[in-house]
């Protein structure tokens, strides 16, 4: 993969920046288009366990009186929760980014970013964004199909501004998701095989982000404790904003900021360890 190597014309700094990272974006889109069949499989296969989880919940609700609630969720609200988690997850999840970043460090591809006026974090963020654009458009087909069959359960946003707020929250969730994955991948500066760390991080994320179940069906103390961690702001919070159950963007914004600073810090420490294998 060769990044942009030429500057077209001398321009003002801002248009210059745009053309530079604009190139990265379009290159990222072209590169990920290759994976479109892969993405389609991935999104379609992902619906199998989703359907299983929904069946499981339906079986649980079936033993309760009609209209009964678990935690603060009726069956319809519970199903909606999982459907929305699927939508947010297909927009924001990192696909190959962490593995690619780790590989960039391992095989020395990072060296060129030390010589060129191109910021590695911004470069990878552009690739993440272009990857997300392609993945979301491909996943839209099977996910929309699935949503159509479950449409009786799908509730609209709680308030008229709900769409806008939820979208804003999803954007921030995407940034947070990227910074977390980026930082974990940077551990490649220190360890030989970063995949264990990626999976360990992902296990915590899977539980604490609300991927497995809505966090407020947990005991209250545990639920409130988790809300102080960054993970709920990846899925549980954006979905909660849409459902009108969550508000206050301060903590989400704070975690995005903190995650960005940690990512920068780890990068600068990592460079001191960097030995440029393969030059």
């Amino acid at each position, binding site marked *: 993969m060769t990044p942009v190597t030429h500057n077209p014309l001398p321009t003002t700094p801002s248009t210059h920046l745009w053309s530079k990272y604009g190139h990265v974006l379009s290159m990222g889109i072209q590169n990920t288009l290759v*994976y479109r*069949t892969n993405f389609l*499989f991935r999104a379609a296969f992902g619906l*199998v366990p989703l359907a*299983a989880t929904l069946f499981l919940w339906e*079986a649980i609700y079936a033993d309760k009186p009609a209209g009964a609630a678990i935690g603060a969720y009726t069956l319809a609200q519970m199903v909606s929760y999982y459907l929305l988690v699927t939508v947010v997850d297909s927009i924001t999840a990192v696909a190959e980014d962490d593995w690619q970043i780790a590989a960039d460090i391992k095989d020395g591809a990072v060296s060129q970013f030390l010589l060129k006026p191109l910021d590695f974090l911004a470069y990878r963020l552009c690739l993440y964004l272009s990857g997300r654009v392609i993945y979301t458009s491909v996943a839209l087909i099977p996910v929309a199909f699935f949503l159509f069959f479950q449409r009786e359960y799908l509730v609209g946003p709680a308030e008229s501004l709900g769409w806008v707020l939820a979208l804003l929250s999803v954007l921030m969730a995407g940034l947070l998701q990227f910074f977390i994955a980026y930082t974990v991948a940077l551990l490649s500066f220190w360890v030989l095989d970063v995949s264990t760390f990626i*999976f360990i991080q992902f296990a915590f994320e*899977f539980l604490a982000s609300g991927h497995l*179940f809505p966090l407020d069906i*947990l005991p209250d103390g545990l639920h409130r404790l988790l809300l102080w961690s960054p993970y709920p702001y990846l899925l549980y919070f954006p979905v909660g904003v849409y459902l009108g159950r969550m508000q206050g963007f301060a903590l989400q914004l704070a975690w995005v900021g903190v995650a960005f600073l940690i990512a920068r810090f780890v990068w600068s420490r990592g460079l001191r360890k960097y030995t440029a294998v393969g030059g």
Partner: protein
Amino acid sequence: MPSLSRYAGIYAALIRYSLIHEMQFKVNFLLWIVVEALWFGLQLAFMTVLYGHTDQIAGWSRWEVVLLVGCNQFIQQLFHTLFVTNLSNLSELIRKGTLDLLLLQPVNTRFLISVKKFEIGNIINALMGLVVIVYSLAQLGRVPTLAQWLGFAVVCLAGLSVHYSLMFLLACISFWTVRAQGIVWGYYNLFNIARLPAEAFPRGAYRAVFTWVLPMLLVSNVPAKLLAQRLASPWEWLALLGMAVACFVVSELFWRFSLRHYTSASA
């Protein structure tokens, strides 16, 4: 049978080689055990949370479901020990043309592809599954007889064989598509549903497909039911054995068909 002992010798050598390779990276070896243990803990945590809100799911009590999750872990981790790494590797063998080398060896190629790397660490995780099985049986107050443990071993082998055949079948798709990591990932999604009680699924297309086409709802459910002594009829374990044989035959036919379409990538 001389050929059987020859293959046993080859397998022993492969295991020894895998062990030596693994011990070069001891920390990584331990970390992988931690990763698998974490995901197992996650499954148990999910069930604990569910049973915090209900006493039974589709007729399964809390400890019966824990037993099921334990059985699923046991089978899945044995599958990892023996096959998963090797089968995920098939697409790379094809992409790089390394398969040529294996095809030329005077050994059955499918055997070599399937068992080349032995993941010793996953045995520890399989044992964790076994511990959970024994513990939940104690909670249920069930004491399986020796015959039932033997039956359990047989149905576990059948479940293992189903996983192996299906993933091998999926991996063979990489003879046609060059980038096939998505397929491996897809199989992860499939075997995630094996740890759920089959009765939770309404009778319909979904349950039929995952019982009679991709028998995910048999592989762990039958062993768990056998130990919990809640098999409704012998048809349940006969179904698993039958599907195990059927899946293997189909995968062997597809493998032979795929090989005929192999155009080497190497020089």
